C-alpha cells in the first residue's frame, strides 16, 4: 500500500522478465510468433508494440476485476478481454500502418493465443494490484519484444541485406553485380529464426549459469 510507485520491488517486475525470467528464452513461451514475424525488423517491432499494449492493458483490466470475476469462468473472461484488445490493436494497425498489418496478417489475431499473455493474467494479474500488474505486463511483453527485435535484426541484415527496410549492404557487393556477396536465403526461412533464438538462449545461459537446468 505504502510502496512508492517505483520501489525496488516494483522495478524488479519490470526488469526481471528482460533477463532472468524472460518469457522466450527462459520460459520458452510465444515461440510460434517469434518465428513467424521476425523475417524483417519492422513487423517484429510492430508486433512487439502490439503485444506490449495488449499485455499491459489486459493485465490492468484483469487486475481491476480480479475480485469480481467468479473463479470458475475466469478463463473465458480473460479471453474476452484479450480478444477485444487484440481486435482494437488490429484495427489501429489497419488504419495507420496498413502495409505492416498486411505483412503480419493472421499473427496479430493470434496474439490472443499467445501463451505469454494468458500466462501472465493467470499467474500475476489475478493476484496483484493494477499498478504492479501494469509493470509486470510491460516487462514481460518487453522481454518478449527485445528477443523479437534482435532476431528480426539479425534475420533482416543477413537475409535481405537491409535494416528496417533500408539497404545497408552496397549493391555492388552482390554477385549479380559482379561482387562477391549473396544474401543468406536460409535466414528468411523459419528454421533460422529458431536457431537464432537458440543461440540467444545459449549465450544467456553461458553467462548466467543458474539458468541451466539439470
Amino acid at each position, binding site marked *: 500500500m505504502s510502496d512508492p510507485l517505483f520501489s525496488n520491488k516494483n522495478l524488479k517486475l519490470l526488469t526481471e522478465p528482460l533477463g532472468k525470467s524472460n518469457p522466450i528464452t527462459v520460459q520458452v513461451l510465444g515461440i510460434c510468433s517469434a518465428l513467424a514475424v521476425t523475417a524483417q525488423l519492422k513487423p517484429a517491432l510492430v508486433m512487439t508494440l502490439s503485444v506490449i499494449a495488449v499485455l499491459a492493458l489486459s493485465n490492468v483490466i484483469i487486475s481491476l476485476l480480479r475480485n469480481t470475476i467468479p473463479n470458475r469462468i475466469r478463463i473465458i473472461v480473460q479471453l474476452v478481454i484479450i480478444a477485444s484488445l487484440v481486435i482494437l490493436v488490429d484495427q489501429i494497425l489497419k488504419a495507420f500502418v496498413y502495409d505492416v498489418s498486411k505483412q503480419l496478417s493472421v499473427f496479430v489475431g493470434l496474439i490472443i493465443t499467445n501463451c505469454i499473455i494468458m500466462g501472465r493474467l493467470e499467474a500475476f494479474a489475478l493476484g496483484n494490484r493494477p499498478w504492479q500488474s501494469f509493470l509486470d505486463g510491460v516487462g514481460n511483453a518487453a522481454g518478449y519484444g527485445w528477443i523479437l527485435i534482435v532476431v528480426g535484426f539479425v534475420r533482416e541484415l543477413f537475409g535481405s541485406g537491409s535494416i528496417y527496410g533500408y539497404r545497408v549492404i552496397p549493391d555492388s557487393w552482390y554477385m549479380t553485380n559482379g561482387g*562477391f556477396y*549473396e544474401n*543468406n536465403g536460409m535466414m528468411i526461412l523459419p528454421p533460422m529464426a529458431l536457431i537464432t533464438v537458440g543461440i540467444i538462449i545459449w549465450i544467456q545461459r553461458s553467462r548466467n549459469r543458474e539458468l541451466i537446468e539439470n
Partner: protein
Amino acid sequence: MEFLKKFFERTEPYVEKGARFHWLHSVHNGFFTFLFVPKTTSASGTHIHDYLDLKRTMTIVVLALVPALLFGIYNTGFQHFKAIGELESSGFMQLFFYGLLKVLPIIIVSYITGLGIEFIFAQIRGHEINEGFLVSGMLIPLIMPVETPLWMIAISTAFAVILGKEVFGGTGMNIWNPSLLARAFLFFAYPSQMSGNSVWVALGKNDQAIDSFTGATPMADAAAGNINFSPADAFFGFIPGSVGETSTLAIILGAILLIVTGIGSWKIMLSTVAGGVAMGIVLNIFAGTNIYMALPFWQHLIIGGFAFGAIFMATDPVSAAQTEKGKWIYGFLTGILAILIRVLNPAYPEGMMLAILIMNTFAPTIDYYVVQGHIKRRMKKVKISV
C-alpha cells in the same frame, strides 16, 4: 622427428596448470598426441586399449578419401579444359595443377575454419582437442561444387561445427553428419551457388566456353528429361559434379580400404546400395513415359553423390545407427529415400544429402526399437520361477 619430440617435451612445463601459457594447453596436447602416441596410461576403468584410437581411425578415413580427392582434382582440370575446348592440347600435369589450384584453397579454408573453432571450444571448455574434424574437414571440400566462393565454405563450415557439433557437446555427440550439414546449409542458404548449371565446372572470368558446353550434371540433364552420359564416364568420373563425388571407381578404392580395416560398416554400405537398387527397380517398373524413372536402376549408383554418400557419409559411426540390425534398416531406407527424392522431387536434383540427414535423425529411433525388440524376444525365454 626427434627434435619435434624434444620441442614438445620441453614446452610441456609452460602449459601446465598455473604456468604462463596454460591457455594453450589443449593446442599443445592436440599437436603432441597427433604426432606421437600419448604417453599417459589409464588411471581407472579399462586398462587394455586397442591401438586403434580416434586419431588412427580418422587418419585411415582420410587415406580412404585420397583416391577420390586426387581424381576430383584431376577432374576439375579435365572439366575446365573440356569446357573451353582445349582438352587435346593440354597435358595431364596441366589439368592436374589447374584442379589443384582450384581445390586446394577450399581444403585449406575448410580446415582452418573448422579446426580453429574446435581449438577455441576445446580451450574454453578445458578438454582435449578432438580429432573429429580431420575427416569432416576433408569431406567438406569433396562435396562442394568447385566454384563455391571461399567465404561460403568458411561460413558453412563454421555453421556445421558450431551448431552441428559443439552445441551437442563436441565430437561423438552430434546428431547429424557435420560435413553434410555444411552442405545442407549452403544448399538452403545460397541455392544459386549450389545448384543449376554454372557451378560444377570451373571457368575463369575470361574463359570462353565452347558452344556445346552446358555445365549440367548428368542428374540435371536427366531431371530435364534427356539422358546424355555414358555409364563408363560416370563410373570413372569424367562428369561434372561436386569435387570428390564423380568417380565411382575412386570411391570404391576408398571403400575397400574402409572395409578391410573394419572402419566403415560394410553393412551400411551394402544395404544403402541395396535400397538404391530396390527403389531404382520399382521406378523402372512404373516408369511409363518418364525418362528419368526409366533410367536403368544400376546407373543411379554411379551418377551424383550416391556412391560417395553411401561409402563415406552414411557410414559415419556417430550419426548412423549403432545396432547391427539397425544398420541394415538405416542403410536400406537411406538408399530408398535418396533415389526417391532424386527422381520424384523436381526441387532437389540430388537426394543423397537429404536422405542421409533424414536417416541420421531417425537412427536413434531405429536403434531404440531394435533394442526393444531384442529385449522382448529374450524376455520370452525367461522362465519366471516363483
